[in-house]
C-alpha cells in the first residue's frame, strides 16, 4: 500500500497576523510550519508503515507552493516520509490547490490519500473533499482513527453527536482531524540528516482555475477591557450576565 499526505505550509499558530495595504498577508518574519492536522496525518502514516503487518510500502508527501515551502517539506522528510513532491504553483484557492494535487497524484498508484480537516490560515476545510471528487474516489471526513489489517481499512469518523466505524475500499481520501494520532512527531537529528538526501521532486504546474479571490483582509476591532468582578461577590456577575450581557 502506498500512502500520500497532502501537506499544507502555514504560519506558526502564534504568529501575529499583519496585512500589507489590507490586501495581502504580510509574510515578513513569519515562521512556517506543517499544518497541524497534516502533521498528525503524517505521524499516523508513519505509525502504519512501521507496523510491518500493514504492508505499507511507502509514505509520500505532496505540497502545492513555491520554492519557499521546501523547508517545511524537508521537515516532513525528517519526520520520516520517504519522498516528497512539490507542485510548483501558487496556492491561490482551495479549488486550484485540489486541481493541482489531483493532476500530480492521479497516475501514481496511491491507495490512501490523507489530508487535514482544515488549513490553519485560510480555514476552508475544502481541499480534501474537492480532491476526492476530482479523482472520482470515495472520501471519508472527520476521521479520528485509521487502522489497517491486510488490505482492509477500518476508519473511525466523528459525526455530529457521536462516532461511526466505517470501511471503504482503496483508493480513497481520508480527511483527518484530532485523534488520528496522539501527538505529532518531531524530527530526530538522524532524521534531519537523512532528509537532505531524500528525493524532493518538483513538478510543473498544471493549467487550473481558481473559483474564488481574496480581495480584502481586516483585523478585528480590539475588544473592550474585561470587566473584573470580585471573587466574593459572584452575585454581581450573575446580575451583569442577566442585565448587561443578557445571556442568562
Amino acid at each position, binding site marked *: 500500500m502506498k500512502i500520500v499526505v497532502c501537506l499544507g505550509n502555514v504560519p506558526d499558530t502564534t504568529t501575529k*497576523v499583519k*496585512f500589507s495595504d489590507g490586501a495581502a498577508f504580510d509574510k515578513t518574519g513569519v515562521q512556517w510550519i506543517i499544518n*497541524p*492536522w497534516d502533521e498528525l496525518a503524517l505521524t499516523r502514516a508513519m505509525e502504519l508503515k512501521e507496523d510491518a503487518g500493514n504492508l505499507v510500502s511507502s509514505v509520500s508527501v505532496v505540497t502545492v507552493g513555491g520554492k519557499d515551502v521546501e523547508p517545511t517539506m524537508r521537515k516532513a522528510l525528517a519526520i520520516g516520509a520517504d519522498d516528497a513532491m512539490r507542485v510548483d504553483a501558487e496556492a491561490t484557492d482551495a*479549488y486550484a490547490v485540489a486541481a493541482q494535487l489531483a493532476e500530480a497524484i492521479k497516475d501514481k498508484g496511491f491507495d490512501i490519500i490523507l489530508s487535514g*480537516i482544515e488549513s*490553519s490560515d*485560510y480555514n*476552508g*476545510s*475544502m*481541499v*480534501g*473533499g*474537492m480532491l*476526492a*471528487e476530482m479523482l472520482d474516489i*470515495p*472520501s*471519508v*471526513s*472527520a476521521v479520528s482513527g485509521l487502522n489497517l489489517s491486510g488490505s482492509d481499512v477500518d476508519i473511525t*469518523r*466523528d*459525526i*455530529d*453527536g*457521536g*462516532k*461511526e*466505524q*466505517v*470501511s*471503504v475500499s482503496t483508493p480513497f481520501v481520508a*480527511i483527518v482531524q*484530532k*485523534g488520528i494520532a*496522539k501527538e505529532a512527531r518531531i524530527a530526530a537529528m538522524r532524521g534531519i540528516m537523512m532528509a537532505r538526501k531524500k528525493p524532493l521532486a518538483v513538478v510543473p504546474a498544471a493549467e487550473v482555475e*481558481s*473559483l*474564488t*479571490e481574496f*480581495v480584502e*483582509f*481586516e*483585523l*478585528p476591532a480590539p475588544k*473592550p477591557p*474585561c*470587566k473584573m*468582578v*470580585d*471573587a466574593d461577590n*459572584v*452575585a454581581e*456577575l*450573575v446580575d*451583569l*450576565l442577566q442585565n448587561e450581557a443578557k*445571556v442568562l
Partner: protein
Amino acid sequence: MSVLVYTENWDGVFKKLSFELVSYATKVAEMIGTSVTAVSIGDVADDELNRLGTFGALKVIKVEGNTNLDNQVYTSILAEVAKAEDAKVVVISHNNTGKAIAPRLSVKLNAAVGAGLIKLPVSTNPFTVSKKVFSGKAKANVVLKTDVKILTLSQNSFEVIEKGGAATIETFAADVSDAKTVVKDVQKQTGKILLNDAEMVVSGGRGLKSADNWGVIEDLAEVLGAGTACSRPVSDEGWRPHEEHTGQTGKIIAPNLYIAAGISGAIQHMAGISSSKCIVAINNDADAPVFESSDYGIVGDAMKVLPALAEAIKEAKNK
C-alpha cells in the same frame, strides 16, 4: 432560479441548526430576488418537514430511503436537485456533514465555496462573502466568481427567524443504493448536551488539577443547562473525552456564554471559542492572558468560585 438549502436531520428530527440554515437561506434569497427550496435526505415525517416552511422555505424536496452518510451519494443527490431547481446558491452547514459534502458538490457544480461563514454575504455583485481567517485572528472578503455558489454556514452564528409560512412537499426519486462507505457501527453520545448545540458552555483547563475535580464544572453546567468543554491538555491527559476539547485543533464553537475556568487563554484555545457572544474567565492569576479576550473576569480559585456561581445562579432563578 432558487436558493437551495440542505437541511440535516437527526433520526428524522430537525434541530435548531436546520432552522438557522433555512433562515439564512431565506435572507440570501431576498438579496438575490428568489425563493428557497429545502432538501432533506432520509426518512423525515411530513409534519416535521412542514416546520421548514415556518422559517421561509417555499418548497421542500424529500429524498427518502437513505440514512448513512456516503459523501458521493449525498453529493450526487444534491447536485441533481440543484440542477432541477436551477439553484444559484446552495446553503449547507459548516459542520462535519457539510464539510464532507460541500467540497465535492463544488467540483460537481463548478461552484465556488464561501466556507465557514458567520454572516450574510457582503454584496451580491460581485458576490462577496466575509469569512474568518487565521483561526479567527482576521477576517477576509472573498469574491465567489462562479455562476453557482455554495455557502457553508457556521453553527450558532445566524439568528433563527420565524416567518410563519408554509411549504409544499415534493418527493424526489434518487438512486441511493451505490454507497461506497459502509457503516459498521455507530456510537451515539446520549443524554448529554452536544457541545456544538449548546447555547452555554462551562469549560475547564489544567488549573482544575485533576479529573476528580470536574464536579464543580458539571454542577454549574447543570444549573445553567449548559454543555461542558475543556482545553487540549485536559483531553490529552484523558481527564475528559476528546470530543470536549475546544480550540484550533478541537471543536470551534460559538455559544452565547462561554465560562473558562482554570484556562490560561492560549491563542490556540481562544481560536475555538472567540466567536462566543460573552466570555467569562475564572483564573487565580490576575495576569493570565485569558482576561485580555474575555468580557467578564473573576480572579480566584475555580474550586471555590464555580460552586458559589452555581449557587448565585440558582438564587437568581428562584427570584
